[in-house]
């Protein structure tokens, strides 16, 4: 008897969800069927063997994030699933346009709320949501930033509903992370699964560092010819340290810690063996609060005393700018479709997840009437606190939520439970559907560029909707098909 590896897709059933690897999708030009055929040809045993080897590779390479518990630090890899998530050329055109539009609107919004505040005066967004927000920084008022760009690096979390429509779940306009995995995952696929990729034309992802570096140079203070860019990291104990290393290397700039920098004469300098050296752009991967102990948290050892002063003098650029957190807040998210229309006079290319704003009468009425089917979230909190998931709540929990809503409607929004799309994912039972999302990354200096694809995070537990790496999530390589992989596509080039 010859041992043949079982069909990896045997027993795969995506149920009511949209599957990201169903063949014959509009614009896939047959590529998805070819990819499936190759996965079959590789077979389940080989998939497993090579996936294991690939994970060992990641550990050895130190493509890891660090998890701290009491006294120990454990380097963990972001679990990697070897079955790619495929995005067709027409789908990517929609995503790219939608992400660009959203970033443009977010920057226009930030410029406005730190200058004329027209959107508040016109009553489109309630003033107290912005001015009373902990992430609103009065230090930014009236301060000019080059090209009006506040958010230079933006990550937008996008999900896909049952019908396959993309919807934005969240904007990350502070210091979004994860892009290093996009590039590393692709490199890993090239090493471990060349036979799965061979001849399938994919948009490359290895250009990110060069693009980011170019943007960081563009935004340097005016009049500096050859600006010195640095990446400011909290250091090796930060869980995203690998990503900081990755980005510094890909950009070809030094990774610095707060103690490497100092401010003199309202200019920023880096300490080198040859003495102080001027710095013009800081791509910072530390939060606003920690940037400058003389302005924000006085106990911060991660930042640089006097940094904000040097920045206000226009001698150094910070990316992202200070105070962008006011734009990626849950409360503001609900208003994003209106914000886009207000500044760009366009409908949002990418819809929000349907959101009911309970400070508005209509939204409150709908929420109260459909409580058992909705997710109710407080606007001011982060980290999932205070959320009631209607379909999973007890009667008592629903009544408590109702009381809270009535007591202070303005503090709440509600959303339907979104059925995230799925993709075949390697499990002990063979390939099985697992839910996933997508975080594309946009880099903006003078203009916006979106890295083709983005980070696909996948919930490895059956039925789970939680894709976060801290809670059992993994990642997949995200394949954006080139136009000529798509039969119906025009000659469009990004």
């Amino acid at each position, binding site marked *: 008897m010859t041992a043949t590896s079982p069909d990896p897709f045997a027993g795969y059933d995506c149920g009511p969800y949209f599957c990201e690897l169903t063949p014959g999708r509009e614009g896939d030009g047959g590529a998805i069927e070819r990819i499936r055929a190759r996965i079959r040809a590789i077979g389940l045993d080989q998939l497993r063997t090579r996936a294991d080897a690939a994970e060992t590779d990641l550990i050895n390479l130190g493509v890891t994030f660090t998890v701290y518990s009491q006294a120990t630090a454990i380097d963990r890899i972001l679990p990697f699933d070897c079955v790619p998530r495929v995005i067709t050329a027409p789908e990517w055109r929609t995503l790219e346009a939608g992400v660009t539009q959203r970033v443009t609107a977010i920057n226009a919004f930030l410029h406005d709320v730190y200058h004329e505040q027209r959107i508040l005066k016109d009553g489109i967004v309630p003033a107290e949501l912005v001015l009373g927000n902990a992430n609103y920084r009065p230090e930014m008022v009236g301060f000019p930033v080059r090209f009006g760009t506040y958010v230079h690096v933006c990550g937008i979390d996008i999900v896909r509903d049952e019908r396959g429509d993309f919807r934005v779940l969240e904007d990350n306009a502070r210091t979004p992370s994860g892009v290093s995995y996009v590039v590393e995952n692709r490199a890993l696929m090239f090493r471990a699964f060349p036979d799965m990729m061979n001849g399938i034309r994919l948009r490359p992802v290895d250009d990110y560092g060069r693009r980011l570096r170019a943007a960081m140079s563009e935004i340097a203070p005016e009049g500096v010819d050859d600006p010195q860019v640095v990446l400011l990291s909290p*250091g090796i104990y930060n869980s995203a340290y690998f990503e900081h290393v990755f980005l510094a290397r890909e950009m070809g700039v030094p990774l610095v810690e707060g103690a490497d920098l100092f401010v003199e004469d309202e200019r920023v300098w880096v300490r080198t*063996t*040859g003495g102080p050296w001027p710095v013009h752009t800081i791509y910072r991967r530390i939060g606003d609060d920690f940037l400058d102990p003389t302005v924000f948290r006085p106990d911060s050892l991660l930042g640089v005393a006097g940094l904000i002063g040097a920045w206000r003098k226009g001698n150094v650029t910070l990316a992202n700018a200070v105070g962008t957190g006011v734009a990626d807040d849950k409360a503001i998210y609900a208003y994003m479709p209106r914000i886009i229309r207000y500044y760009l006079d366009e409908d949002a290319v990418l819809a929000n997840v349907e959101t009911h704003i309970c400070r508005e009468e209509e939204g409150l009425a709908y929420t109260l009437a459909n409580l058992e089917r909705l997710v109710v979230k407080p606007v001011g909190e982060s980290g999932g606190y205070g959320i009631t998931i209607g379909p999973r709540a007890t009667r008592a929990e629903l009544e408590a939520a109702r009381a809270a809503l009535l007591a202070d409607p303005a503090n709440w929004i509600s959303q339907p439970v979104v059925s995230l799309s799925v993709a075949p994912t390697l499990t002990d039972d063979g390939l099985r559907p697992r839910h996933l999302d997508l975080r594309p990354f946009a880099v903006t200096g003078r203009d916006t560029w979106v890295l083709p694809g983005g980070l696909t995070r996948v919930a490895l537990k059956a039925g789970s909707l939680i894709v976060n790496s801290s809670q059992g999530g993994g990642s997949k390589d995200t394949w954006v098909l080139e136009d000529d992989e798509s039969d119906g596509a025009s000659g469009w080039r990004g």
Partner: protein
Amino acid sequence: MPALPLLARYAEGLFWMGRYLERVENLARLIDVTQTFEMPARPFESWYSLIRINADEERFAERGYARESAAVKQFYLLDHDNPTGMPAAMEAARTNARTLRPVISTEMWMQLNMLHRDLMHIPATSLSGDHLSRLCSQIKMGVQSHTGITEGTFFRDQGWLFYGLGRAIERADQTTRLLDIQYHLLMPASAEERRVASLTQWGGMLRAAAGYHAFRRVSPAGYQPRDVVRFLLADPCFPRSVLMCVSQMEWQLSQLRATYGLRGTVPALERVEELRAGLLARSMDSLIEAGLHAFLDGVQRDLILLAAEIGSAFFRDWRPLAQAEGQTQTQGTQTQSQA
């Protein structure tokens, strides 16, 4: 604008990564030579000499080890909390490598990462019988792989010179310790024992330093202990001789000054000159007569002063705020000065 010079923090990290890795390799050599020297009648004496040359008597007692051979091996190879042991040096090397990931090659990082994983989980059974020698080989080869990868992949700007300085200073220091074993071992022995043990033991020491065959090539037919001492201290061609290390330091510092304009190298270069003069000033006979141990002690002190000159010229500057962050290296310096 010209290219950015090296970050002071990277320079310090590279210097210390080089030192710690050299220390890991040399600990394996010291343990190997001790094993070879082990005198059947008094095995613990042999092993305890290792404790003495590292000035670890107090720490060894404090950590509650029994006075037996196995305890010394454990102390240096398995005890993660012993700051003078191999695991602590490996941990410190890897922590430095982590901060240096933006400047070292991916291949260097990957190998160190894997070596670290292996050396932090040595099973106790590896210390017994013939396993120990194999373990020492494994450790040596691990660091030698690092050395080769570094030679073939590490970008040779000033960072490479600081890395090389760290390795050369540590290697010189370790060679003096290897020599010092002789002194400690032979002190309690009678004149006759000394004479008999002597030649075999000098040979064993040369083997531990990977210099036995080279020594035979350049040494007189009926060699004396002073020839071995001269070889390890002042041979101009042997890669582990103190003189060779000193020549390397001189070259590295001169490069830093000439190519990178680092004027802070001047006081360090003066120290190097003194070291060289000290090595060549006296005949080996007079040096041994005056007391080899005291001479070696002097060399070790000079190396500490040299490292301090380099540190204050190039490293201190980057951490005026956060002294706590520099503990690894600060601790390393303290360890050195206690010895």
